[in-house]
């Protein structure tokens, strides 16, 4: 039997082979950042025991303010609701992180679920990235501050979006990824749409 091979949600687009260095030739650049770890964490943000245990396990404070995120080198913790967070971890880290959280939260009203197969991340950059977001979503991205994350519409689907560096990161559900990518490509094509290589995590 061959070695196990992962296939990301956008595998069928063959993005890796089209990727190139970002330059001025396109107004919009994007690519999939595959195989990250995704942990869904549920618990009561007003429960100090839960917050402390989770923060300690994660090594970063659990963001308690709505629509904010906190991050360390390895992971990002996105506030999704007063009792829900998404933890985005480096590839291969999800399992360990899940165990660690579950141990820390033993006996605390909470839920820790590995959802790594269920999501993927899309890098969106370029001088016209904001214009593209205006095409695909109803949210006012112009006022989206760094360190904030929003769950909003993407076409007739949805995405979690935050800023990182010069661009944006979108976290989308696996089964919708095909639709979302096609939609994104259609919206971006008028500006010149390039597949970026070495998309920064």
């Amino acid at each position, binding site marked *: 039997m061959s070695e196990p091979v992962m296939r990301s949600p956008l595998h069928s687009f063959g993005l890796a082979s089209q990727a190139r260095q970002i330059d001025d030739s396109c107004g919009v650049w994007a690519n999939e950042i595959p195989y990250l770890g995704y942990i869904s964490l*549920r618990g009561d943000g007003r429960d100090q025991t839960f917050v402390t245990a989770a923060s300690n396990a994660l090594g970063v404070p659990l963001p308690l303010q709505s629509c904010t995120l906190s991050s360390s080198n390895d992971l990002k913790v996105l506030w999704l609701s007063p009792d829900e967070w998404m933890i985005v971890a480096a590839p291969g880290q999800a399992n360990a992180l899940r165990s660690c959280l579950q141990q820390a939260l033993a006996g605390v009203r909470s839920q820790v679920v590995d959802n790594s197969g269920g999501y993927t991340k899309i890098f969106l950059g370029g001088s016209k990235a904001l214009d593209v977001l205006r095409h695909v979503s109803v949210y006012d991205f112009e006022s989206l501050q760094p360190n904030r994350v929003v769950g909003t519409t993407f076409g007739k689907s949805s995405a979690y979006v935050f800023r990182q560096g010069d661009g944006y990161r979108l976290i989308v559900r696996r089964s919708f990824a095909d639709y979302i990518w096609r939609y994104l490509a259609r919206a971006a094509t008028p500006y010149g749409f390039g597949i970026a290589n070495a998309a920064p995590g």
Partner: protein
Amino acid sequence: MTSFRVRRPGARIDFEKPLSFSFDGQPYSGFAGDTLASALLANGVRMLARSFKYGRPRGIVGSGPEEPNALMQIETGAHTIPNLKATQVELYDGLTARRTTGYPTLEFDLKSIGGVFARFMPAGFYYKTFQNQKLWPKFEHIIRQAAGYGSAPAEPDPETYDHSHRHAQVLVVGGGASGLLAALAAGRAGLKVVLLDEQKECGGWLLSSPYSIIGGKAADAWLKIVIGELQSMPNVEVLTRTSAFALHDMNLVLAVEQLQDHLPLAERAVNRPRQRLHRIRAESVVLATGAIERPLVFGNNDVPGIMTASALTTYLNRYGVAVGKRVLLHTSNDHVYQGACDLIRAGCEVVLADARARVNPAWEKRARAAGVDLRLGYGISFARGGREVNGAQLVKLDAGQNVVTGTGPSIDCDALGSSGGLSPTVHLYCHDGGRPHWDEEKLAFVVPATGRAKSRIYCVGAVTGEFGLQQALEQTQRTIGDLLASLGKPTDTTSAVDVRTDEPQTVPPRRIFRIPDGKREGHGKKAFVDFQNDVSAADIHLAVRENYRSIEHIKRYTALGFGTDQGKLSNVNGFAIAADARGVSIPEVGTTTYRPAYSPVTFGTLAGLHADETFEPRRYSAMHACHVARGAEFEPVGQWLRPWYFPLPGEDMHAAVRRECLAARRGVGIMDASTLGKIDLRGKDVREFLGRVYANDWAKLAPGKCRYGLMLDENGMVMDDGVTACITDDHFVMTTTTGGAARVLSWLEKWHQTEWPDLDVYMTSVTDHWATAAIVGPKSREVLAKVCAGIDLSSSAFKFMDWREGTVAGIPARVFRISFSGELAFEVNVDANYGHYVWEALMDAGGEFGITPYGTETMHVLRAEKGFIIVGQDTDGSMTPLDLDMAWAVSMKKPFSFIGKRSFARSDTAGPNRKQLVGLLTEDPEIVLAEGAQIIERADTAPPVPMLGHVTSSYYSPELKRSIALAVVRDGINRRSEEGRKAGRNVLYAHAGGKAHKVRLVSPVFVDPKGERQNV
């Protein structure tokens, strides 16, 4: 052909850039900057349409979106566009336009024959005739052929569209003088401003009025300075060619931007959208939408060459086209005087008939000085001319009453412009419930200058009835000052602009709409109110006479304002004439309701990117590529695309399904079950929660075990079903139907959040995380054994309805021993990133056993053979678990009254003779009943036939080598019981497509009734 070009500095025509175009196959030339209308006029084309009802010759009346007549078919083939107004089509080289009316030709229109009999075709005549229902289709066919303007394309659209969602602090609609000033002030205050203008450049009426002076500067220079400053501000965005067509609640303005239509076909960028829908959410909206001049209503006022006076002026000043040499102007107000002077300056002779006996002395002086032949106190009784105007008969008007006191001169002319006053463009203000009010002095429906401060809608300029330039600008300064003050911004940014003009103070217009001709309405020459729908003043009087008195009735009876111009020229005249006919005031008549779209917008723009492959989301499983590679046919299920069957070369569906079924029953099959909804539930109260939302009991389900559950709505009807596994005592994983996943999660959240927040339960969707392959058949264990580690697969260690954790092909997996086929079966769940890999690994492992992938069709056959229901196919929202003969899945003993339970006890739900699920066998085993066949008592199908139920599922069973079906039948369970059989009540007929087949009611479990196979 008496029109001529006027070369005047400041005109928006580039005489260095000639363009060629065609109209109705005739070549013409124009210049860059022309609209199709201005170019046609410059070429002397007067008649370019025939009227809707009477086939009367028609020409251009307006210069913008108000144009009722000049509806054009632009371009041909896939790029063709019907019904564009020539006044809004920017000319480009090579443009092709065709008329949309006039059959067989413009010169001779068949409908003009009908026009001879116009008196027998008054408003609403068709309600009074053609009353034979049998003959009506023939009449209707003729009516339909005669109706309609342009033609829809015959091909799909080669161009694309998109949406842009914007958020502004201040949205200014209209880039005329007031709008520009408003945007400038808001921009200088540092606010995020968007300014929209429907034309290709800002300026509004100033573009038609080059001799206006603002703050000592000529209009042109003033515009350059203001627009230049706006464009230099990073916080201000100016969108031209962008028409705001709707204002929805909470200041959501929709506007369509034209990105390509002004370019020659060859120059249009393939990747660029043709049009863009801007959905702009604004904290404050400033409506600077201006006003549109309405014509006066007089006899034969529809002859080509008769326009609004402002259109004449616009063609002259902005487009460099003098429409005629001898121009007759007719007015009731001051607005035409500057235009009259401009026409003289261009070399025209001008007669100006003012309905007022005494006019504004300042204007009178200027006009006379310029050489205008002023006739005061006169009205036009009727115009002369057929295909173009050649004169008009004047009448002397009483100074007070709108009656004729004597005859007047007959004036020759080759162009005629009239002005009945300005009608503010109040449409957007009214879309979200705002109402305009009638200003008797200004003779206009206006909106308040204060707008609707609570909604943060402000109005400036002509839309408020401030028709004078200086007054409008001063009012804009005050209003924007208020707006800025409300935001705590300095208000001096507007007052810094000098807005003094040299315009004389205007004096009130005369209250006249319909120029009297000395005859009773309906006896004189036709005087049109709505050109596009051929609605005359007499039609409105007739409607009122017939008691269609509400303005909405008048509109609907006569079609007033129903055209593609939405009554921009006609409505106020119509309201006024209706008021006269009813003998009431105009405010008592009121207005019709203003509805979007202010100007028409393409379906493509509305759809944006929601077209073609991105019309709606389509979801794929992680194993999709595996199925494509194996040649699967697919079936849409909810948002998903699932493999339907996997035909081998030469196989049809029947053959493929037969092969797949037998593989699963005799050997081993494999199916992608990833699309089922999966919800992870955690918390110490999950059991209790499950007990409330499912009909059955969950108190004793042990870790490592699974159970099937029926989920009911509160009405007691089955809404979803699925298997839930107990992972640990406080951790469960629920599966739902493919189509029901999102609904179920939302349903569970709603109950938890609203009714039972104290229950310790968290729910998270893991549908997308897990990829699931079901391995099905007697050999499934052997296949799995080859790749599975960490699980004892023996039947004693891993029983039916158990689940275990281990690895499959080296990947951590949850394996469920559950079965939707009645066979030994395992469902392998892995991280979806490995879904593709694990599917292929299972295929490899199953190779030696002939593992056969199968799709939804085979799944349906297998489950039907076992009598397993599909929610939504065998149920329709009216079936209780008891109706499904599934009492075993209901626990009436649970302490909590689970959702839906109480409804069972209602008299009808608990009553006899309900439709119940049964199996059906046809007398002829080869006949596969139609799904949807109706169950009836006797073979006689002459209606009406009482129906007892219907076939919900029907297949040919390869296992049984005969057809089988499931059905819901009244009292079906009794009918198929021993007693029912004895009474012969179990034999019925299934009727479909006119044929009735004898059927026998049996148990719905056709294969392995004892359920032994799944336990091996």
